């Protein structure tokens, strides 16, 4: 599998604010690549540099062998972009929008997409009268009409209900099966975990982790212990070696630790010595959600 995107030490500032500090990544042909991070982390700036609509201040960037901001016209023939918060003309009918955007390209997969996205029943409806999920389908169709080699999706599932979100994932997977490479940003960790082949985590304009969702979960300590106890105290737990954070609600505790085994040993030893009962003790595997919070807290304490 070849690399379709290669970014080396990308830097971008707006005035005195450094939105992207130093990001290097590669995206392979045919994969779904997720860029995740909290709001304001630099996700959109990063994806917009890849799309060629923002010029990096520094670093090297190659997308499909082109330099995006310099060869934008060439690039625009080969990529599809779904921007955050865009619309089409309110009084434009779905069929009209598809025909219009199809006329921008020499060849399109118009009819196939109408089938794939189930747009038949909505062809005569004006854009403004569609629900959020259908609007998203229509704009997805517009971005993929010309069988783009790379499809960029900026926060594709924002504002969709859980059902519409799952349908969107299905559609994105179907596009991937056609051989399209997909780069998307999201702040839904579940989306990254279930949909993406590889994930880049961005915090304050810097790349913090990169790999398959599974690798991220394994290589970074985001695992925790949960148990119920009436007598253990927060102050004691947080003082134990390797403990990163402690959350408790009534008598249920969630202890995030860099070293589960050691932490567990200390808790059991203390409880044994002091005859404190502990119930329902479990080793839990963290989700990307936990990893996300883990990084945010490290960021805050740094």
């Amino acid at each position: 599998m070849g690399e379709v995107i290669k970014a080396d030490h990308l830097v971008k500032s707006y005035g005195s604010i450094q939105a992207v500090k130093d990001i290097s990544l590669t995206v392979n042909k045919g994969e779904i690549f997720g860029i995740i991070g909290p709001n304001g982390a630099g996700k959109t700036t990063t994806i917009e540099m890849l799309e060629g609509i923002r010029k990096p201040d520094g670093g090297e960037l190659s997308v499909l062998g082109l330099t995006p901001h310099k060869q934008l016209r060439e690039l625009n023939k080969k990529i599809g972009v779904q921007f955050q918060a865009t619309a089409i003309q309110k009084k434009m009918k779905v069929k009209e929008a598809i025909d219009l955007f199809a006329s921008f390209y020499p060849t399109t997969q118009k009819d196939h997409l109408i089938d794939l996205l189930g747009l038949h029943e909505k062809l005569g409806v004006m854009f403004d009268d569609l629900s959020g999920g259908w609007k998203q389908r229509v704009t997805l169709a517009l971005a993929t009409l010309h069988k783009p080699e790379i499809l960029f999706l900026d926060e594709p599932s924002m504002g969709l209900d859980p059902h519409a979100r799952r349908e969107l994932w299905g559609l994105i997977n179907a596009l991937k099966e056609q051989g399209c490479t997909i780069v998307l940003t999201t702040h839904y960790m579940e989306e990254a975990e279930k949909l993406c082949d590889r994930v880049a985590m961005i915090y304050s304009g810097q790349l913090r982790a990169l790999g398959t969702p599974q690798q991220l979960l394994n290589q970074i300590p985001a695992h925790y212990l949960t148990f119920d106890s009436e007598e253990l105290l927060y102050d004691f737990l947080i003082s134990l070696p390797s403990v990163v954070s402690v959350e408790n609600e009534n008598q249920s505790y969630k202890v995030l630790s860099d070293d589960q085994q050691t932490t567990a040993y200390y808790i059991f030893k203390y409880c044994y010595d002091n005859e404190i009962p502990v119930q329902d003790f479990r080793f839990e595997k963290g989700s990307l959600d936990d990893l996300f919070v883990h990084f945010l807290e490290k960021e805050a304490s740094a």
Partner: protein
Amino acid sequence: MTAMMKLASLETKMFFRDRLSVFWTFLFPVLMIWMFGSMFGDSNLNGLSFAEMFVPSWIGVNIVTISFFTLGTVLTNYRETGVLRRYQSTPIRSWMILAAHTFQGSVIFVISALLLMVFGILMYDLTLPVYMGSTLLALLVSILAFFPFALFLTSLAKNSQAAAAISSLCLNVMLFLSGAAFPLEFMPTILQNAAKVLPLYYVVELLRGTWNVGPITDYGLEVGVLLGISVVSTILASRFFRWSDK
């Protein structure tokens, strides 16, 4: 090219789906002529009848409304709501979008001008322009001046409310002070001079003149001013074109 024509025809279609803009663009000027006509229908000014004075000038006003509201404000709204942004990563280019909207505006303008003219002929014994070719050229020059002028001014607005405010201001000032709705002869000298900084003044002079008095070659100053506005604002409108405000 097909993309541009497709966009132009779609935008025209969508214009007619909006009843309110159809009313303001097509019927409001006719109502105004009818209203002024019921008051001053029999008057005669500088040797011109009511219709000879005001049908050409309201056709001029239509150029202003269409360029500011049908083109400028709508494009600002498209910029604000992300419609333009959606074109940004496609092969369509910004000048094609501007050209498509200019074409749409021209079609709507021709319809509105024909309506006014037919109304004038039926109700107020207006005759067809004496110098037809000159009048058509004058209309072309006026459109070429006003469309980019309005597109540039409204593109300075951050949102469609601000664009509508700019548009209303321009329209009202020009409507009342350029001699389009009220004869300049009734106004104090200072306002008569002030009228000469308003682009619509030159459109009104040129249209009235070529309709009733003489060929376009007699109106070198007006044509020169309008072509100047056209060149400068075309450069500004394309230079400062933005896909989005983000």
